[in-house]
């Protein structure tokens, strides 16, 4: 009021309830727009709390509070993040298929808005290996393949040799494979895990314990299709 021609100086006076409702609607629209979502996601089958907590604890050790919420970045980290391009960190839980003890299929789903182009900065597969035998430790070799349309048409993404004593999480870098999937425009990442020496191991922990469900972490950055830089 009083500043004719100044478009940013406020809104016409509204009744208290109406103003509050309007502000909430603006907040909703603003958040959805910034997250590149047309509407709020419909969560039909929420991820079990144990699965969620395990993944977050692994990713942000020391930053997960008792109630499961995440301590957000410090001001300094926020400023650093602001300086970089806007990025995302995505955690996807696997749908597993393990008919064969030494060979398992893992499928990860990703949603992507049309026209958005992602650059994968880093992508890691997390798997839990648990020994069921009395042996003090067991030496195993695990290989992660990107599944092709045919059984023989698959690509080796990562290979690792390690000892399993009781149970432990193992990480497999698979950045290049996931980038190829996104570049093709696919919404699914299909992986095959082969494990030599895993006869007595419960691989992919989801067999018995939901908190050990395999997951994939991807740090991504949105690439503008037609970006113009001005100096």
């Amino acid at each position: 009021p009083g500043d004719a021609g100044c478009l940013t100086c406020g809104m016409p006076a509204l009744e208290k309830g109406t103003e509050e409702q309007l502000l909430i609607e603006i907040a909703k629209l603003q958040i959805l727009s910034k997250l590149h979502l047309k509407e709020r996601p419909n969560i039909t089958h929420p991820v079990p709390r144990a699965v969620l907590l395990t993944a977050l604890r692994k990713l942000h050790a020391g930053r997960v509070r008792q109630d499961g919420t995440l301590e957000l970045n410090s001001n300094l980290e926020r400023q650093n993040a602001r300086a970089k391009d806007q990025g995302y960190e995505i955690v996807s839980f696997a749908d597993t298929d393990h008919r064969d003890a030494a060979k398992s299929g893992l499928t990860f789903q990703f949603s992507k808005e049309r026209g958005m182009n992602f650059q994968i900065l880093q992508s890691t597969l997390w798997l839990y290996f648990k020994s069921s035998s009395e042996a003090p430790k067991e030496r195993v070799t695990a290989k992660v393949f990107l599944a092709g349309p045919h059984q023989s048409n698959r690509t080796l993404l990562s290979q690792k040799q390690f000892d399993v004593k009781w149970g432990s999480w193992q990480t497999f870098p698979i950045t290049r494979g996931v980038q190829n999937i996104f570049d093709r425009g696919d919404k699914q990442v299909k992986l095959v895990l082969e494990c030599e020496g895993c006869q007595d191991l419960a691989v992919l922990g989801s067999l018995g314990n939901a908190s050990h469900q395999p997951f994939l972490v991807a740090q991504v950055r949105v690439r503008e299709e037609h970006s113009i830089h001005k100096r």
Partner: protein
Amino acid sequence: SLDCDTNISLCCKKDIYVSFRDIGWQDWIIAPDGYHMNYCMGLCREHFAGAPGIAASFHAAVFNQLKANGIHSAVSSCCVPTQRRPLSMLYFDASHNIVKTDIPDMIVEACGCT
């Protein structure tokens, strides 16, 4: 930067908090619990003009010249955000994946007159 209360009509920061639980969004937004949707409102008198941080800038010098020469009638001063910070969010997307992102410039921290 002033915080708005009932006695202030000058440019100030109005604090508004939208709780995700209250609007039924807690099922897909894991963190934070809500959004500080602050905004700027109020009057900007001519002599208040000059946002913090630009006092010695080229823009301030031009503005002072305009005022000195009486051309200020064409210039209207606006109450606008002068400091903002990002909002860190952790949420489920449509594929039930967890996404963490920092949305820049989402929270108004200070207001001033242009």
